[in-house]
């Protein structure tokens, strides 16, 4: 099928399993949300898809091509990754950082970006509303601004698979909505978008497909309205919640009631 298909992925850190036979699909043209508590394995799963983790088992395929065995440069032309934190001691402007997204497309002999590279960088900056920042130094920006620059860098890779690890964690609410809108547009253009997120209401609002992780296993997968139910939230997050349907809105709303003692 077209899109990302992950099956039975197992990753260990020492003796401890971080991912234990995890599998899910992220269809092309859809936004897929990875949800689950801290330490559930969301970041590791994203890292595994990007080839940053050694798999002890399982397969990862994008459009039927195996990602783990793909040459790194070819993989980088297909998928882009936005990490949770990205800091540097280098002296780079915002334009330089977004320009890094063109690295997979450039040859070693190339001394400067091509006209096409520059055009892609310009439009990626514009998409994230960061055009005015192009000449500013990256390391002097706020965390939220840096996050938006990193997303712009990922867009500059013109990816067909876009993986983001909590891309909105440092953003104010307006910026969160703007970023999620951009990701939806990417999906509409045919990209498979996968993002780890903590805000279940934003997940319900923006994702077409949700994957719930707990202790390295996928415990639920499907449409947000199907995945988000009080039982699952209690089991996975240890939170008692009410799910309500707001009249006139197509997506459910989660109301958190309490965090009952587990023992």
């Amino acid at each position, binding site marked *: 099928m077209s899109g990302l298909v992950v099956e039975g992925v197992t990753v260990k850190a020492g003796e401890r399993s971080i991912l234990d036979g995890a599998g899910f699909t992220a269809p092309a043209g859809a936004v897929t949300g990875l949800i689950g508590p801290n330490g559930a394995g969301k970041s590791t799963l994203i*890292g595994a898809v*990007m*080839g*940053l983790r050694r798999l002890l088992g399982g397969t990862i395929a994008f459009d039927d091509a195996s990602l783990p065995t793909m040459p*790194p*440069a*070819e*993989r*980088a*032309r297909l*998928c*882009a*990754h936005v*990490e949770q934190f*990205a*800091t*540097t*001691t*280098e*002296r*780079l*402007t915002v334009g*330089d*950082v977004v*320009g*890094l*997204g063109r*690295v*997979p497309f*450039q040859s*070693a*002999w*190339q*001394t*400067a970006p*091509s*006209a096409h590279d520059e055009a892609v960088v310009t439009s990626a900056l514009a998409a994230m509303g960061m055009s005015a920042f192009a000449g500013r130094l990256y390391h002097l920006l706020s965390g939220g601004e840096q996050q938006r620059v990193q997303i712009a860098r990922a867009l500059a*890779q013109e990816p067909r698979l876009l993986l983001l690890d909590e891309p909105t964690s440092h953003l104010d609410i307006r910026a969160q909505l703007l970023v999620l809108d951009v990701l939806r547009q990417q999906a509409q253009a045919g990209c498979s978008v996968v993002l780890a997120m903590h805000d279940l209401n934003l997940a319900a609002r923006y994702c077409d497909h949700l994957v719930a992780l707990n202790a390295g296993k996928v415990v639920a997968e499907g449409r947000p309205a199907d995945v988000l139910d009080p039982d699952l939230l209690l089991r996975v997050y240890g939170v008692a919640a009410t799910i309500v349907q707001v009249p006139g809105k197509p997506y459910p709303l989660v109301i958190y009631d309490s965090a009952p003692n587990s023992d």
Partner: protein
Amino acid sequence: MTPRPVYVMAYAGLWALLLASAAVAMTLGPAHISVGEVWGTLLHHLGLLADSPVSRLRDAIVWELRLPRVLAALGVGAGLALAGTVMQVLTRNPLADPYLLGLSSGAAFGAVVFLLAGAALLMPLGAFLGSLAALGLALAIARLLGGATPSRAILAGICIAALASAGTSLLIFWSATGDSYREILSWLIGSLSGSNWSDVLLVGLGLVLCAPIILLSGRGLDAFAFGDAAAASLGIDIVRLRWTLLAATALLTGVMVAVGGAIGFVGLVVPHAVRLAVGSRHRVLLPMSMLVGAVFMLWTDTAARSLFDPRELPVGIVTALVGAPVFLLILLRYRRVT
């Protein structure tokens, strides 16, 4: 695809500065030789001028003494600046430099071991092995301390440098000849005095071998800005790139030390100054650092041999006088990450 005009101008300016500096530096020294005489001698030796315009003695001063020295200084400066730039990226450590991480001291020790063992011809190999061992040791110690943070790498470097320098001094004392103090100084502090054409050949070979590998890795080094994972997700084979470049850096340092001893701070000061001016895009930073390093080394060496004429300072003293305050400034600037 075409480089921006501002960089074309900067490159042209730096090359012009380099050539002009070389021409002027060759006129400076105890014997007064004019720029015209220098050019005449060079043209004569290149076969473009039938008769040498100067006496045989002055011809020899230009061709056998000053020109090799100037070329050695240019090459060593370019090599050390290049090595420093690469180490700063690969270790994500703004303080990394072949001297501070102990590579230069290790190389000097290796060179002296081979020299005293009677294998003078293999001395560059000894220097390479010494710098490689020092690099391995620095990385191992930093890992032992729990990860290669900037301050740990520097501490490891201090330890290695102290050990290797003591070893070098001990070896030279052991085989003491009349001039051993001078010899110890030139290995430990770095000096280009007495550079000849075979030194120039060695430096040239080192640069021809290592510089292209490093210069063509600019794209990969850029991708390292946000760490290993980010570089890998940009399609860089980080393990291969890192080991290739560390080996090239160790070789480059070994060659430079075999010729000039452990000259400090060039690899630290030059990349930082250039980075301030042009930023961290390595496809610009690497070649510019080489050019600036060459000019910097040429002038510090010229100062070292002519400021206190007729006495000559080891050039390492001059680079340290310039470099130590800059090192302090960088420390203050990056105190958060150390």
